[in-house]
């Protein structure tokens, strides 16, 4: 595979990894799959791109507010929708998930209504380009990689070392016990959602520079992260990143070798064989309880 493609793999892997890390956090802390993260990333990025391209806002301010919006929307999702439903159904998973998918659609259409249904250009934070042999590496990809590594290391440390991080894992493990003992479950769940929103917002605004962003990008982004989580598993904080890079490699390589049509066949076939013969995923935690 040409070096340029490896650059793409790294970019894609980092982006999908960030989204997947958001999934990981909410799954770990609140035990729901926050499918709306892709659209959240899109929403934040759309806001930033809209303000920069239409209203001429300076990039850092627009991006910052975009990320803040993603965080706020994610938090509101928990506060206004998921939490009441979670309470009323006694913690059943399905109604919460459906609500989240509904939010996914709502965000998509809201973005379409507010920011228009045509794609908006993203602006790179660092527009330099470096040549490395045959390959061209943009400054933006370097920013993306750096942010990803920082985010993963930060989250790993936070989950292990900080009080809130440990409580987040405890709440995800046994919400009932946590509530009984007096762990501030509501606060912890909110933190999980907001952090996931933050990761998504950052990922979206960094990635938008590559190909622009449109109101339909969100669903695609959700799927990319979802795959990464599935392949990587949930046994380890770094698992989503490993999963994301593997998926990105497979998809890029298969397109390069066999053309696009094969990409989806091959992805399916590999996943199928993988799960059929190596059912544990890559990282998995299992306790016997």
């Amino acid at each position, binding site marked *: 595979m040409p070096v340029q493609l490896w650059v793409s793999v790294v970019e894609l892997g980092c982006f999908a990894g960030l989204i997947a890390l958001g999934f990981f956090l909410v799954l770990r802390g609140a035990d729901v799959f926050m499918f709306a993260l892709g659209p959240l990333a899109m929403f934040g990025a759309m806001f930033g791109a809209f303000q920069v391209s239409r209203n001429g806002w300076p990039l850092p301010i627009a991006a910052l507010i975009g990320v803040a919006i993603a965080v706020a929307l994610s938090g509101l999702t928990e506060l206004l929708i998921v939490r009441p439903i979670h309470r009323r*159904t006694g913690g059943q998973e399905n*109604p919460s998930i459906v609500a989240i998918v509904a939010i996914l*659609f*709502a965000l998509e*259409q809201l973005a379409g209504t507010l920011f228009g249904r045509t794609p908006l250009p993203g602006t790179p934070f660092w527009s330099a380009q470096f040549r490395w042999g045959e390959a061209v590496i943009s400054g933006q990809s370097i920013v993306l990689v750096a942010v990803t590594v920082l985010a993963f290391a930060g989250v790993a440390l936070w989950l292990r070392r900080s009080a809130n991080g440990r409580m987040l894992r405890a709440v995800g493990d046994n919400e009932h016990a946590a509530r009984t003992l007096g762990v501030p479950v509501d606060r912890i769940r909110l933190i999980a959602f907001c952090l996931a929103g933050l990761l998504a917002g950052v990922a979206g605004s960094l990635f938008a520079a590559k190909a622009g962003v449109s109101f339909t990008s969100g669903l695609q982004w959700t799927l990319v992260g979802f795959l990464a989580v599935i392949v990587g598993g949930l046994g380890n904080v770094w698992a989503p990143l490993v999963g994301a890079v593997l998926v990105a490699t497979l998809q890029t390589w298969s397109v390069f070798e066999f053309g696009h049509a094969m990409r989806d066949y091959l992805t399916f076939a590999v996943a199928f064989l993988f*799960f059929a013969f190596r059912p544990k995923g890559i990282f998995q935690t299992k306790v016997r309880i």
Partner: protein
Amino acid sequence: MTTRTTPVAARGTSPLARHRWAVEAVAAAVFALALVAYGSGASFRQDYVVLICTYSLLALGMYIPYIMSGSLSLAYNAYLGIGAYACGLISTRAGWSSLWGVPIGIVLSAAIAVVLGLATRRLTGFYLAGVTLLFAVAFQVFLLDRVSLTGGPVGMPVRRPHAFGYTFTRYDIMIGAVVLVWIVGLLLSRLRQSPFGVVVRLRKDVPQVVESSGISSGTIGVVSLAVGAAIGSVGGSLFGMMGGVAQPESFGLHIIFLAIFMPLLGGQRSPWGAVIGAVLVVVFTFELHILSDAGTLFFAIAILLVLRFAPLGLLGLGTPLLRLLTRLRMGRTPGGEGS
């Protein structure tokens, strides 16, 4: 709270409970008749009713594996598509009645569901979701890609079904669809209460109990997936015969999300919840273009509202009422629960 003298089968004495199936069948039949009456009006209403039935079958197909057994299979667009394309292929290529497409679609969909189910048998539902989602995507590519078989982006025509020299009209298909949903709903409702239903539901929360009772939890899962896929495929055949065309865009990923929505919107405790969900979805999609710009925004908001105020689905709203009624009828006070 632990009086032993309360007759254990107290529930069985309620007249409503004793004739439960008859009541349910009649109630559903009344609803079905209402649908038919509605569909006897303007001709777009027949499409409307058939779409409701198609979505109902889609949601009913989800019911056993997803709601009862807890396996989130996401390949329903494929099952629906297989049903429709089977009818198209058999009627245009072989020149047979498209009705033959129905059994062929059933067998094919069920077979695929079995293979997908077997691959993820030892995994949590999460992985099943992943593999089936990828399959769903690959299926879409396949429909577009294999032009010689599927007609590519244009799709292929599905001829009106005929049997014994009679060609069914759109109205006939509508009637057939409503009757089909009525039968499948009723059968599933009975199935839910039967030992099979109980075992399948237990598998969702305590698979290890099912296993240690001598029942292979994997087999149960695979069989429910197959039955669900078969039901979904019938819905697809219906849709194809009504629309007269099988097109790749009709079997996109959005179908999957609808399929997940519907049973939960209506209520999980009964298959009729799935049907109610289907009605809601169709009505929401066609009637909620208040501000035409926002399209599905209102659809999504409507769903959120339903979930917010009836987290257990619309039928979930009805159950407490019904319970209160029966209890009052039996001369007990609401405070007496648990005695």
